């Protein structure tokens, strides 16, 4: 008779454990989704700012067409890839970032453009958006770390595999420039 009660108690404890573990995982997964949505908002803002930027710069005679076109192409690709997984998007956004860097480097040679009010305003807005992308990326990656830890560590990994939770991807953006080896010239 006692054995029956003990077995019952064990079953109840296991159920409670599963209940708690499952809810914790759901909460983390939703936090990851929310963090990703925040990044999405900022990335969209960046995409929206670029056409204006291109227009402002295009008016300046002799501005390198190829640079402008590269930015437009990268931006369109990034926008098209808006529903891809984090690793894919990271690549596309990194490419866009690289194209923007090169654009800004070329702008250095145009003092009129650098003093243009609309250009300065857009540049500031882009800079602010870059900062917010950074912040939201931090939050996303930290949250993903928390979720992945819970999914992979014992004993919550038991609950995770039973309930079918998958580890999330980190959002790591690298610009192509960062990948090139640093040239040291004396």
């Amino acid at each position: 008779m006692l054995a029956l009660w003990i077995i019952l108690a064990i079953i109840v404890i296991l159920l409670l454990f599963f209940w708690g573990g499952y809810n914790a995982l759901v909460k983390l997964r939703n936090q990851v989704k929310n963090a990703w949505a925040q990044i999405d908002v900022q990335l969209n803002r960046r995409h929206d700012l670029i056409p204006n930027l291109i227009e402002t710069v295009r008016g300046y005679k002799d501005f390198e067409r190829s640079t402008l076109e590269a930015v437009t192409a990268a931006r369109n690709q990034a926008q098209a890839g808006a529903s891809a997984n984090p690793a894919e998007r990271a690549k596309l956004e990194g490419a866009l970032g690289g194209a923007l860097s090169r654009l800004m480097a070329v702008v250095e040679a145009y003092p009129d453009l650098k003093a243009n009010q609309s250009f300065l305003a857009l540049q500031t807005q882009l800079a602010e958006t870059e900062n917010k992308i950074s912040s939201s990326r931090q939050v996303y990656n930290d949250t993903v770390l928390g979720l992945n830890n819970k999914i992979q560590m014992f004993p919550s990994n038991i609950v995770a595999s039973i309930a079918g939770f998958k580890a999330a991807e980190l959002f790591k953006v690298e610009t192509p420039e960062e990948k090139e080896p640093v040239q040291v010239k004396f």
Partner: protein
Amino acid sequence: MWEQIRSNQIRSAVLVTLMALILLLVGFFIGLALGSPIAGLIIAFIIWGIMTLVAFFQGDSILLSVSGAKKTSRADNPQLYNVVEEMKIASGLEKMPDVYIIDDPALNAFATGRDPNHAAVAITSGLLQKLNRDELQGVIGHEISHIKNRDVRLMSLLAVLLGAIVILANYAWMFAFLGGMNASGTNTNKRRSSRGGGGTGIVQIFVVVIALILAILAPILAQLIYFAVSRKREYLADASSALYTRYPEGLASALEKLSTSTTQVKAANKATAPMYIINPFRKKGMSMSDLTSTHPPTAERIRILRAMGGGASLADYERAYKQTKGKGGIIPPSALAGEPTATQSRRASTYRVVATG
């Protein structure tokens, strides 16, 4: 990040419970000394209830209007607004806090709000002028983390409890004095007592003594708890700011600028002091590391931030804290559990558009 927030919430609950128990203990013993422990408990509850209601309804608006803060918008102060928005994103706050500016040459900032959805950040015009963007981000990050960790609510609750304990202890003196005089004066003084029979005299005196000791010790103990908690939360807010900004040097450099200025903020008082970023009552030469200070010494806060090496995570702050103080730790292990450990700090921002992706 979320582990740390959850761990803070649990700790806050424990602290409030602890202080409440002290309050009820004082009430109980005073009641016991005067003949009715139940009455003592009830009176303690009533005092606590009234003060909580007052504090709750007083809320943020009084603090903000007393300090002369004016609400500002994205159009009026784009850089400040953007910095607050970045920190709101980095801390995971759901709703953007209101941003206020205080027209005061003194350098200070504070956060207020009973919960993260009704929060506000205020900064003096003096401070806004003096700081660069990285430093401003550090200060705002510190304030936002007070909001996120619900420190504002915790400190108000503890302040109310502390106040109630002090009031009760005050009256305990009066009643014990009167009660004691009565007992020694006449033998026919009847007291309702659940104990029957002989020996009640000694027990009665014993209870009175305990009540008096509690009346002296409880306020002291409560004060120590209150100030210790305040200081601990300040360290934690510094650590969180480093995590959100990924640039501890920003806050360190801002604190340096703050500490060299001695202009006092006009409208601060002891109850609102914990919410300012730096002790508004510091005076040159006065020791700030005493037990009744709401803030840890600024020089120490700067040292810890600068000892973080190239890291920006909570674990890095914990390591820097142990290194600087030579003992203990400030961040509970439960908070460090799910946190990233190898977080790199970024370089100083250059305010130009450099695409980072």
